[in-house]
């Protein structure tokens, strides 16, 4: 089967690739671009471990072909921070025990990041509803919700201080 040339902007970097139309975005990110933050969990559009941000939308990258993403801007967990300078969501997940095995965490944080862009002052219910597309089998969600709320509070406090 012939390959298609695509151009993506991933974490601020332009990437030109040749892909088969049937290649799912998650595999292109993981295997061709070595971005192994987004995980393959259920592979059936349920668990959200593969969540990335595409043009301001949280997307399950197991349910999108890479060719569909032609011309888009993609942010994965790797694009949110560096190991020496964690994103506030990552710091809050660490502080509030928002992860145990960590498998769902990149998807959780990528999704929570978009949620806080759209709703900087979420209630607990908003957070629970907003991350309903991400499954965690360890934490029971309590500490994930706490972490997201703590991150929102810290972002808002930093903004107020800046103003």
């Amino acid at each position, binding site marked *: 089967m012939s390959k298609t040339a695509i151009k993506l902007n991933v974490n601020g970097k332009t990437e030109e690739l040749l892909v088969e139309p049937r290649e799912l975005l998650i595999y292109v990110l993981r295997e061709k671009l070595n971005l192994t933050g987004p995980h393959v969990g259920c592979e*059936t559009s349920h668990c959200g471990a593969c969540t990335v941000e595409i043009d301001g939308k949280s997307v399950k990258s197991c349910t*999108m072909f890479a060719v569909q993403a032609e011309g888009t801007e993609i942010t994965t967990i790797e694009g949110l921070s560096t190991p020496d300078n964690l994103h506030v969501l990552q710091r809050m997940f660490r502080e509030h025990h928002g992860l145990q095995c960590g498998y769902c965490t990149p998807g959780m944080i990528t999704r929570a990041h978009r949620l806080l862009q759209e709703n900087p002052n979420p209630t607990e219910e908003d957070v629970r509803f907003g991350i309903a597309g991400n499954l965690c089998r360890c934490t029971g969600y309590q500490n994930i919700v706490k972490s997201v709320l703590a991150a929102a509070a810290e972002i808002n406090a930093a903004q107020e201080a800046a103003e």
Partner: protein
Amino acid sequence: MIPAAFEYHRPKDIEAALGLLQTHGDEARVLAGGHSLIPMMKLRMAAIEHLIDLRDIAHLRDIRIEGTNIHIGAMVTQAELIGHDGLARVAPILREAALQIADPQVRYMGTVGGNVANGDPGNDMPGLMQALDAVFTLAGPDGDREVAARDFYEAAYMTAREDDEILTAIRFQVSAGGYAYEKQKRKIGDYATAAAAVVITRDGDKVASASIAMTNLSDTPVWSESAAAALIGTRCDADAIKTATDAALADIDPNEDNRGPVEFKRHVAGIIISRAIARAWSRA
């Protein structure tokens, strides 16, 4: 999971998309948000040789509110529908229903057109569009034609759309009065065990008009004319709601599946329909 190989097309306008459908016949399918089709392709339950992505056809994303006429392009996503303040003002039932579909990630990608065109009995928009008496525009090789949502669904995954047609838009009239979309589902992301869309208008303390449709309780959505007739002219008290609910239940034919046996589904449906009527009336 890797789907079978296919050729990917991304036409810039509807004419080009229709041309591809003509050329490739039943080897081709159009792709909207892909959140029903791509999982089926991954499971190899759908084998498609030519995938025609509609995402570059800009006018399919239009939302227009002209007086009491509402036009929603087929490629409008559930998230765009939820986020549209104009629509929330004139047709708040759309947001209420769309928020109960799937999960946030699916709503960013899943489209209204895909939801109504797929013919999956579990989809929520078909019943809602029947309750609103919406009309679907189908573009085909001989131009556009329109089919009422109430005439569109023939059986599970079987609709009035021909293989060489594309559903491009949905239109309906703003309905005054109260509304409700009630849905019972086992968990986020599941389809309805039972769901109901209700629109009611009031004249003094009586029901002036009503429209009631149900989701996932037959192999098509069910618009129940007799349930509506049972409400009109009543004060929408407990007796009237019971009579209308019984009439609605007489029109459905649920199947046993992993959401429960037929008796359970009828039980759930009765509760959901009654709640939807009561809530719509409370807002009328």
